[in-house]
């Protein structure tokens, strides 16, 4: 018995893909992914219509999906993140059925509890054997962790592995095991390696970004969580990484040994772990080449699934043990709700990813963002989309001051006592408006183009069409 088939077309036929089904994809190939486009083009050629695409993320490289929506091949879309190109088309209303946005943890949880049903999952595998054992760690398209693909493999009715690096059975270091895999297809390339990860992720040199990062690090220090056993998650953005740098300096100075760092992993976090600041790295997705090399070679560096990362349906998830998370925002409102789904004009250009999962799980959720970006104030009366509920956000750090959620009285006292520039969130809003002027409210249509589900599957907000 071999699961190896001669072509993607044959695999699609064997899986029994037909009109109206839901197919799924994971996004570790990021903006270099060829697999989603390849599968949709093949399905379109075979005359299949009315598909729902559930992809952990949609990037700009997936722009051809717009054509498939227009031709009726794709009539439903579910994802945790959507880049600006497809986001713009969706915002203008090309898809009749609202897009379903979930979080990384919510997507895994909804597959686990059965509320999100996947008929056929397609897994882009940087290496695989003929029985479907696969991993992201090896091969010309190596992406490191395959974290988000685990739920798809475990819960879809049929699972197809696509690889451009077929190795003899058995693959010596397997992430997703053969028991979940129905078919294997060898293709020329699953992605463009130059776009899968960035070569290196760099710390910002922007003085505003550094000021924000410095203040955020002071918040971490004075919160009381920066002690032995400290666990930490931060993004790959320049300012988030700068927070890691300042936190590292504090850990060095006070001889603090942390327990784990998590998330999308960058070379910077790998270096921190290697220097002994963290016992282990929990990696659901690699952001750069150094992280990929590390997950392949460093026993301290573990691959984790989206379930283990953040699923609310699991008996526990790593986010529940997280001390501090550093998050971004396009908008924050005076109730501390955060928008990471749309820009200030209401166009979709992002998504929760793990934002609301980590905010809910972490003991201290810090949002870092400039008070004004291209004239637009960060803080508004009401966010255009509620991506993360304000009740789970503890601190907003801007270059002009720090706002603490009123529910966190003790924390506010600690930060004030440390001499940090703590201000009321409404005061921060006023400072920005005095500099930039009060922005006119953006008008939007009355059609719902996307529904944002919270990590537990409940409706958090809707996104209306742009006009």
């Amino acid at each position: 018995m071999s699961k190896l088939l001669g072509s993607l077309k044959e695999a699609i036929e064997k899986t029994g893909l037909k009109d109206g089904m839901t197919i799924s994809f994971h996004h570790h190939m990021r903006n270099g992914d060829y697999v989603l486009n390849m599968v949709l083009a093949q399905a379109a050629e075979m005359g299949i219509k009315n598909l729902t695409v559930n992809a952990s993320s949609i990037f700009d490289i997936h722009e051809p999906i717009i054509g498939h929506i227009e031709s009726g091949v794709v009539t439903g879309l579910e994802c945790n993140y959507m880049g600006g190109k497809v986001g713009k088309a969706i915002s203008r209303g090309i898809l009749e059925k609202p897009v379903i946005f979930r979080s990384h943890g919510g997507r895994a949880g909804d597959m686990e509890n059965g509320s999100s049903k996947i008929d056929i999952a397609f897994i882009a595998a940087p290496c695989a054997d003929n029985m479907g054992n696969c991993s992201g760690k090896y091969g010309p398209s190596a992406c490191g962790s395959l974290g988000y693909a685990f739920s798809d493999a475990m819960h879809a009715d049929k699972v197809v592995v696509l690889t451009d690096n077929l190795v003899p059975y058995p693959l010596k270091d397997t992430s997703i095991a053969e028991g979940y895999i129905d078919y294997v297809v060898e293709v020329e390339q699953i992605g463009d390696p130059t776009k899968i990860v960035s070569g290196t992720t760099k710390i910002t040199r922007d003085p505003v970004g550094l000021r924000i990062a410095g203040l955020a690090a002071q918040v971490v220090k004075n919160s009381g969580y920066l002690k032995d056993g400290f666990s930490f998650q931060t993004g790959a953005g320049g300012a988030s990484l700068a927070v890691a740098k300042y936190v590292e300096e504090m850990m060095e100075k006070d001889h603090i040994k942390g327990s784990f760092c998590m998330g999308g992993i960058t070379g910077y976090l790998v270096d921190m772990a290697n220097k002994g600041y963290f016992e282990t790295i929990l990696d659901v997705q690699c952001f750069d080449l150094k992280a990929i090399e590390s997950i392949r070679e460093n026993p301290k560096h573990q691959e984790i699934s989206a379930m283990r990362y953040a699923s609310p349906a699991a008996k526990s998830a790593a986010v529940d043990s997280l001390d501090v998370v550093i998050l971004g925002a396009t908008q924050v409102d005076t109730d501390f709700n955060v928008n990471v789904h749309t820009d200030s004009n209401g166009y979709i250009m992002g998504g929760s990813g793990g934002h609301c999962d980590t905010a809910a799980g972490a003991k201290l959720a810090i949002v870092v963002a400039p008070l004004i970006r291209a004239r637009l104030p960060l803080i508004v009366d009401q966010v255009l989309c509620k991506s993360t509920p304000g009740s789970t956000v503890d601190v907003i750090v801007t270059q002009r001051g720090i706002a603490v959620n009123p529910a966190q009285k003790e924390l506010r006292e600690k930060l004030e006592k440390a001499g940090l520039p703590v201000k009321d969130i409404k005061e921060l809003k006023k400072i920005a408006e005095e500099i930039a002027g009060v922005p006119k409210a953006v008008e939007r249509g009355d059609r719902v183009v996307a529904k944002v589900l919270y990590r537990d599957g409940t409706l958090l907000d809707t996104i209306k069409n742009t006009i």
Partner: protein
Amino acid sequence: MKILKNAVAGTLESSDLFIQIEPDDKELILEIDSVVANQYMDSIRAAVLDTLKEFEVSTGKVFIKDKGALDCVIRARMETALKRGGVEQP
């Protein structure tokens, strides 16, 4: 006062604006393209017209690509463009 020659000021960087001005004897033509048009078009237009008035310029062509510049930046870039275009401060 009149704009005597073509001139530019500013950049296309975020939070800045790029201004091109040209002479015109008869009318004032003002074209503004802004990334924050929805939120701030009225105040951008007001800042530009204000600066023109300050320099007593009533005719000419002004083309603006705004990347989210603050009011003070718009006025400073306008002033520079006008001076480069041969307009003297009254």
